[in-house]
C-alpha cells in the first residue's frame, strides 16, 4: 500500500480516458442496449400505473431516468458475478438478465415471483442469476457486496461483486466502513453510486459538503471516477474499464454516475421539493433520448428505433399481464423459509 507504483496506478485509473467513445460497442450492441433501456423504462411505468391502481402492495421506488447506469454496468457482468442493489433496484435486476415476468410477479406479491412474494419491490433476489439482494436500508448492502467479493477472493474465483447505491448512502457509516475495508482487503468490488441529486427528498447541497461522491475514494486508497451516468456509452466504457481492473485483481473501484431521478422518491411522491423548470429539463437529460440521438447520428433510422421501443413495450406488457394472472401465495405457507428446518422454527408455541 502507498508505494509509488500503486499511487501512479491509482492516479491513472482516476483520470481514466474521460472519453465517451463507444469503444468496442457496435451499432448492433447499441440497439440491443437501447431496447434494454426501454424495457426498464416501460417496466417502471407499468409499476407506476398498477401502483396507482392499487395492484402493487407497499411503496415501490422507480429508477426511471437512471436506466443507462444499470444497462451500461450490467453489460459487463456474467451470471456468476454478484449484484446487490438498493430500494431503487428494479432496473439493475432487469439489466442483469432476470426474468421480466418473475420480477414483476414479485412486485405484485405473487407466488411465481422471484422471491415467491416474500420480498417485494425492495428485496428482489434472483440467486441463480447472481442477483443477491436489494435492501430497504440505505447503504445497507455495501458491506454485503464486499462480503460476496471476499468469498470470491477467498476461493480464488474470477467473479466480481457490484453494488448500486444512491448518493444518500454517503451519509451512512456503513459506506465509509465498507470503502475502508474493501480497499484494505483489495476486494473485487465495484461500488456504483447513482448520484441522482436527491437523498429521498433532500438535495445533495442540503445533506453533504462533499459534492462529488467519488471524492470519498482517494482517502481510502481506492480508485474512482465520476462520469455522466445518463450517457450510456460513457457508462459502458467506464464500467468496462473498472471491471477489467477488478478482474485483474487491482482492488475495488468507485464509479460515480451522475444521473437524474425522473420519478419521485416513491410512487405517489408529490415532489414539492422540485421546481417546474427542473422537471421540464428532464427530457433533455433522458438517457434514452440521448442514445436515440446518438444512433440517429450514426444513420440508424428513427423508424427502426421506434420498432425497438415498440417491441420492448409489447414484451414487457405481455410479461406484466402474465404476472397479473399468476396465483397469489397460499396464506397457509406464511411460515415457510424462516429457518433451515422446521425443527428450528418450532420455537414458537401456541401462546
Amino acid at each position: 500500500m502507498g508505494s509509488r507504483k500503486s499511487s501512479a496506478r491509482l492516479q491513472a485509473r482516476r483520470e481514466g480516458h474521460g472519453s465517451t467513445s463507444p469503444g468496442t460497442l457496435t451499432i448492433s450492441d447499441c440497439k440491443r442496449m437501447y431496447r434494454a433501456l426501454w424495457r426498464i423504462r416501460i417496466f417502471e411505468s407499468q409499476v407506476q400505473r398498477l401502483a396507482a391502481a392499487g395492484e402493487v402492495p407497499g411503496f415501490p421506488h422507480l429508477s426511471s431516468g437512471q436506466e443507462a447506469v444499470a444497462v451500461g454496468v450490467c453489460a459487463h457482468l456474467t451470471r456468476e458475478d454478484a449484484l446487490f442493489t438498493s430500494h431503487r433496484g428494479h432496473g439493475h435486476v432487469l439489466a442483469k438478465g432476470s426474468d421480466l415476468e418473475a420480477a414483476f410477479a414479485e412486485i405484485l406479491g405473487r407466488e411465481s415471483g422471484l422471491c415467491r412474494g416474500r420480498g417485494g419491490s425492495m428485496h428482489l433476489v434472483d440467486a441463480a442469476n447472481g442477483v443477491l439482494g436489494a435492501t430497504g436500508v440505505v447503504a445497507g448492502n455495501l458491506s454485503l457486496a464486499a462480503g460476496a467479493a471476499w468469498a470470491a477472493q477467498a476461493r480464488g474465483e474470477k467473479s466480481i461483486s457490484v453494488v448500486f447505491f444512491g448518493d444518500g448512502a454517503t451519509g451512512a457509516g456503513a459506506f465509509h466502513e465498507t470503502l475502508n475495508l474493501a480497499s484494505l482487503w483489495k476486494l473485487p468490488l465495484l461500488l456504483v453510486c447513482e448520484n441522482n441529486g436527491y437523498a429521498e427528498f433532500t438535495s445533495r447541497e442540503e445533506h453533504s459538503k462533499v459534492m462529488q461522491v467519488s471524492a470519498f475514494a482517494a482517502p481510502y486508497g481506492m480508485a474512482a471516477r465520476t462520469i455522466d451516468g445518463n450517457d450510456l456509452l460513457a457508462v459502458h466504457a467506464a464500467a468496462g474499464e473498472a471491471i477489467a481492473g477488478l478482474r485483474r485483481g487491482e482492488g475495488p473501484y468507485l464509479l460515480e454516475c451522475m444521473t437524474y431521478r425522473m420519478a419521485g422518491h416513491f410512487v405517489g411522491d408529490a415532489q414539492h421539493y422540485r421546481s417546474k423548470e427542473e422537471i421540464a429539463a428532464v427530457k433533455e437529460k433522458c438517457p434514452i433520448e440521448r442514445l436515440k440521438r446518438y444512433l440517429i447520428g450514426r444513420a440508424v433510422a428513427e423508424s427502426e428505433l421506434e420498432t425497438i421501443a415498440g417491441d420492448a413495450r409489447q414484451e414487457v406488457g405481455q410479461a406484466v399481464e402474465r404476472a397479473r394472472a399468476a396465483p397469489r401465495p397460499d396464506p397457509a405457507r406464511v411460515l415457510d423459509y424462516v429457518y433451515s428446518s422446521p425443527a428450528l422454527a418450532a420455537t414458537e408455541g401456541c401462546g
Partner: protein
Amino acid sequence: MSQTFIEILRRALDEELARDPAVHLLGEDVAAGGAFGVTRGLAEKHGSPRVRNTPISESAMAGVATGAALRGLRPVLEIMFIDFLTLALDCLVNQSAKYRYMSGGQLAVPMVVRTQAGAAGGAAAQHSQSLEAWLIHVPGLVVVAPSSPVEAYGLLKSAIRLGDPVLFIEHKRLYAMKEALPADVQLPQIGTARVARAGDDVTVIAYSAMVRNALEAAAELARGGISVEVIDLRTLVPLDMASIAASVSKTHRVVVAHEAVRNAGVGAEIAARIGSELFDELDAPVARVACPFAPIPFAPELERALLPGTADIVHAVRALPG
C-alpha cells in the same frame, strides 16, 4: 486433560477450520488471537486469509460475513463484546435474519457471530451487558448461550454446521472455567435443552453462566431437603419447550434465572409460555431471578449488589408458595 472455556473454543474452531475449507474466522484482532485469546495460533496454522483481522467496523464486519455466507462461506465473526453488537444490528436484524425468508428460500446465511457478554470484574456499563432478549425477538436468528466449556465445544461446532445465522453468546465469567472434554463427546442438536441436574421438587431454568449458579443453589437446597432440577436451555431460539414441559410436569414449581434485566427478558417469555401451555401443571406462579433494572455499575461492591447470583436463586426457590 482439562481445558479452559477459551482453550476449548479454540479447539472447536481449529477442528472446524480443518474440517471445512468454507469456514473462515474474522473479527478485530482475531489473527493476533483476539481480545481474549480464543483464536490464538489459528492464523499461523490455517493461514491469514482464513483467520482475518478487520478494522473496528462492526457494521461492515457483519455485512461482510453475511455477504460471504450468501456465497457459500461459513464465516465465524467475533464481536468482542455484545455491547458492540449494537453497531452491527442493522445487518443482523434487517439482513442476515431475513435473507432466507425475503428471498423465498433461494439464499441462506450460514454464519456464526461469536460474542462475549455478561458482567464480571468491573467491566462497567458498556462492557457487561446481557442483551440476548433483543436477539430472541428477531425471527430468523438462532441464539445459543453455552454454560460450560464442554457445552461450548459441541454447541459451537453444531452452530457452525447449521444453515442459519447464529448468535453465540459466551459469558466472560466462564472463560477461565476448566473441564475435560470426553473422548466420545456428542454434538448437540441446536434447539435441545439438557437436564444439568435431575431433581423432583422445583425446576430452575437457566442458561449461560447462570447455570453454574443454579447448580450451586441446587446443591445448597439439597442440604435442606429440597430437590432441584436444573434445566440448561443451551439455546434461547429455538426454545426447547418439550424439555421444559417434561420437567415442570414433574416438579410443578419453576424459577427462571438469568443475569439480564427482568423487564421483557428471556424469563418473561418462558414464564408466559409455561403459564399458557402448562397452567394445569403449576402449583405456584413462575418466579424470576434477574438483574434489577439498572445499568451494570463499575465499583465492585455496586456490581455485586446488582448482579443476581446463587443466593438469589436459593431465596427464590425457598420463597415459592406451597
